[in-house]
């Protein structure tokens, strides 16, 4: 706690006028103890699922596409940058992460690129995909670190992962954003006719979502960040709010959406639960149901497409009723 106060003091001295950062640090100082997740899933493998998603927390999602597993922005740390304590423990123990086909990292910020978390996954993945400019800012690991430009793909045994454009900022420590202007990305995973969009951290950019839809017209699922929202005049450049996330969902033309990037750490002025509530309000206004937009609890796994043969031809999105979902806790 003393360390936090010291850091808050340093930040306030070096970034005069950055009231938002000061408020966030003050709220972090008063953060409640990390909440535990009851009935955590021990074995996340769903042999009878074609597509399943387990929200570990923040932007970390364990995706199962048939027999393949991928992990997005792995973050199992209990404190971010020695300053921001986790509000809820990771929804999956690292020891229970199945062998992964790949890990993707969307950008370098502390809440998306966690070196200690990658340490824990070192023997579980052969490759970590990152945006351009990030390798030079990462420690050495035994797995391959591969940079992907927008629209470039990594392909291995039928699993294809493509970097797709989003709007955010690069860098890790603030100043280095100027030197890494392209170090942020989203991804699309494709396997056996399934396709999943992962937005990482992004502002609302209709042209990017439309361009992604043009290349991936049958997205099975979109993982979209919905927070931080406030202060909007500060966040608007780099983060979409819940309403914009629903717009992005529509523009992407995905069949289902799972919101991410909320209620795991304090990194904004948003009250706990505010983003999820705004999303629910938006869903109601747009007539979207829980099968279309599934708000998971941390540690919750949902089977989005149950067992069955891969479709011979991808079906059109949004014009057929969503398949029944099955909660797994």
């Amino acid at each position, binding site marked *: 706690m003393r*360390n936090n106060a*010291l*850091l808050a003091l*340093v930040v306030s001295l*070096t970034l005069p006028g950055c009231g938002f950062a000061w408020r966030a640090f003050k709220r972090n100082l008063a953060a409640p103890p990390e909440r535990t997740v009851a009935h955590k899933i021990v074995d996340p493998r769903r042999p009878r699922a074609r597509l399943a998603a387990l929200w570990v927390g923040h932007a970390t999602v364990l995706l199962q596409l048939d027999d393949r597993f991928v992990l997005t922005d792995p973050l199992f740390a209990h404190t971010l*940058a*020695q300053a921001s304590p986790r509000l809820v423990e990771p929804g999956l123990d690292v020891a229970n992460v199945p062998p992964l086909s790949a890990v993707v990292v969307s950008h370098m910020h502390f809440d998306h690129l966690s*070196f*200690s978390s990658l340490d824990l996954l070192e023997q579980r993945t052969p490759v970590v995909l990152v945006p351009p400019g990030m*390798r*030079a*800012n*990462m*420690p*050495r*690991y035994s797995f391959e*670190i591969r940079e992907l430009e927008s629209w470039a793909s990594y392909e291995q045994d039928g699993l294809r992962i493509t970097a797709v454009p989003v*709007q*955010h*900022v690069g860098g*890790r*420590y603030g*100043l*280095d*954003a*100027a*030197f890494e*202007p392209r170090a942020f990305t989203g991804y699309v995973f494709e396997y056996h006719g399934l396709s999943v969009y992962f937005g990482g951290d992004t*502002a*609302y*950019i*209709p*042209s990017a979502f439309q361009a992604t839809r043009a290349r991936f017209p049958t997205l099975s699922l979109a993982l979209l960040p919905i927070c931080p929202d406030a202060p909007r005049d500060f966040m*608007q*450049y*780099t983060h*979409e709010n819940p*309403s*914009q996330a629903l*717009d992005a969902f*529509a*523009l992407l033309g995905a069949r289902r959406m799972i919101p991410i990037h909320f209620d795991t750490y304090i990194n904004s002025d948003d009250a706990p639960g505010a983003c999820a509530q705004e999303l629910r309000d938006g869903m109601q206004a*747009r007539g979207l149901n829980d099968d279309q937009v599934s708000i998971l609890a941390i540690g919750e796994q949902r089977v989005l497409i149950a067992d069955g043969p891969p479709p011979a031809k991808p079906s059109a999105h*949004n*014009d057929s009723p969503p398949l029944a979902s099955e909660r797994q806790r």
Partner: protein
Amino acid sequence: MLFSGVTLFVLAARAEAVSPVPAPKPRVMSPAAAVGVWALAQLVPSPLLVTGKEHVGGGVRWQVTPLLYSFGIAERPLRAFLVSPIARHSGSLELHLSPEWACCAPGQQTSWLVRAGLRLYLPLEEHGEKLSASLGGAYYRAAGGGGASADVGIFTFNGVLGLNVAVSPWLTRREVITALTLRFF
């Protein structure tokens, strides 16, 4: 036919409801401006506690890194001047230059001295971002002459904060200088 028409109408209505207004572009510094900010940040001195035989004083120190070889980073191990914290604290060998004003050198015309040396950084926790240590050796040049010094350090908060103790046996009455290091890149 009727169903298709209704579906198209609903989809069109949905499309209209989507905001066409993109987010404004983030305001990111140009590289030149960032270098300027970095240069200004280097002017922020680290406060010193100067201790010697029958003498206690204060002082300030600045430091620059003309060259650094990082053996902890995945790519581009050689860095000059502007060194990201992960490159330095994940494990590196640094050539450093440190002008300092260590008050007050009894019997000397000036309290200024400059050190040049090598420093080894070793990561202790989270690849050095959370905690790292250093070991160094340097040659100093002061008003009364030159000599050798050795230093040890410990750093946290991505290397922004640190404690460095330099021992210079022949730097009369300023044999031990402890620095609270403040460093941004």
